[in-house]
């Protein structure tokens, strides 16, 4: 659903709208990059924990 059309018409051409769009798109890009970074950190943590668990399991098996 595109509610922007219901509230206002999409950005008309002009310098001010180009600047606003550029800033908006940059912020959206940064948000996506930030989210990707958060997910990478999460998966790395999970990987490390899984490795720890594996090591403990092999140690127990050896004993």
């Amino acid at each position, binding site marked *: *659903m*595109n*509610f*922007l*059309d*219901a*509230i*206002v*018409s*999409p*950005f*008309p051409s*002009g310098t*001010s*709208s180009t600047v*606003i*769009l550029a800033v*908006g*798109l940059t*912020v*959206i890009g940064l*948000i*996506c990059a*930030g*989210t990707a970074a*958060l*997910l990478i950190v*999460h*998966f790395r943590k*999970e990987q490390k924990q899984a490795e720890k668990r594996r090591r403990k399991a092999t140690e127990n098996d050896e004993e």
Partner: protein
Amino acid sequence: MPRKEALISQAVAHLVLDLACFFLLAGNFSSVAQTSVLAGAGYLIFLILSYGLRPFFGVILDEIPRTHSQAVGCLLVGLACFLPPSLGWVALFPAGVGSALFHTGAIGESLAFARGYFSRNAVIVSTGVFGAALGTVLAQKTALSGWIFSLLLCVLALVCFFFAEARKYPRRIRSFRHSVTLILPDWGILSLTLIPLLVISLVGTLLPADWAEGPMILIPAAACMLGRGTGGIAADRFGPRKTALVCFAAALVLLTVFPHVPWLYCLGLSALCAPTSICFGTATAALSRRPHLAVGACSAVILLGTVPALFHIPLTVSVRCLCGGLLILALAVSVGLYTDHCRLFHLTAKIGKRKGDRV
């Protein structure tokens, strides 16, 4: 069984909260923003705050789950509605932050308590879009005052405080993992889950209902709400693979071939929105102990999908072809993602054995 009171209170609060936010945007804020560029900028700020903050709130809420984020979100949006129309620009900030906080908390909590069922999440997710449309129509057609919504949101904040299950947050979250292929690692599942969600958002933005003006926008919004609700219920009944396959195929035909026929468009929109709750559930399967971060990741992708709304893109044949291609991609990814490959290979091996016996 999940608590019905919490489910109903969250669904109603979601509807009223989105209604209040869009009432604020289309009413108080539009009267302050003198040009369409400023109004568009305000909408963009709200969109960025509401969707963009969810991943970061998601991380916080996963670390400290026993916060009453839904009640706080309702109060913040209530505060934004209480501010006079002259402070329209200021009101955008509590409204955006409150909306982000509520959505992350409510949807994340619904996923944490879902016990592997998609329908609970679907019920909560479905009401928002109708609230947004209703808020826009009320702001344009009536002279209602914002404080009515402030009052309503304060009551809902209390209801969420008492009924929401934040105090009984489960230590171990039952995952949706049973519904997803087991041959992929978690990051692979998450990456593939976000593709259909991006397609849903992109196609919904690229193929807007041109015929729906004024109060008529309630019709596609209702179709979207019904689609999201029934999608989750159908996924529990028939499985996510069959549901996603049928829904994306139906959306492909109805939205790309008949985008100008209102009732077929509405049916197509319902079909397009139906797999939303499946995507949220599968993202939780990949991020099993972080349901709020799953909501955040899905929201960031939805935000990315709304970018074409900022540009004037006419509905040409090439746009329809692009949407068709995207829907085929989503269909293929969903079928691959929700197929039980282990069982499939096991069956193939069995069939091969039988054939070998016969030979």
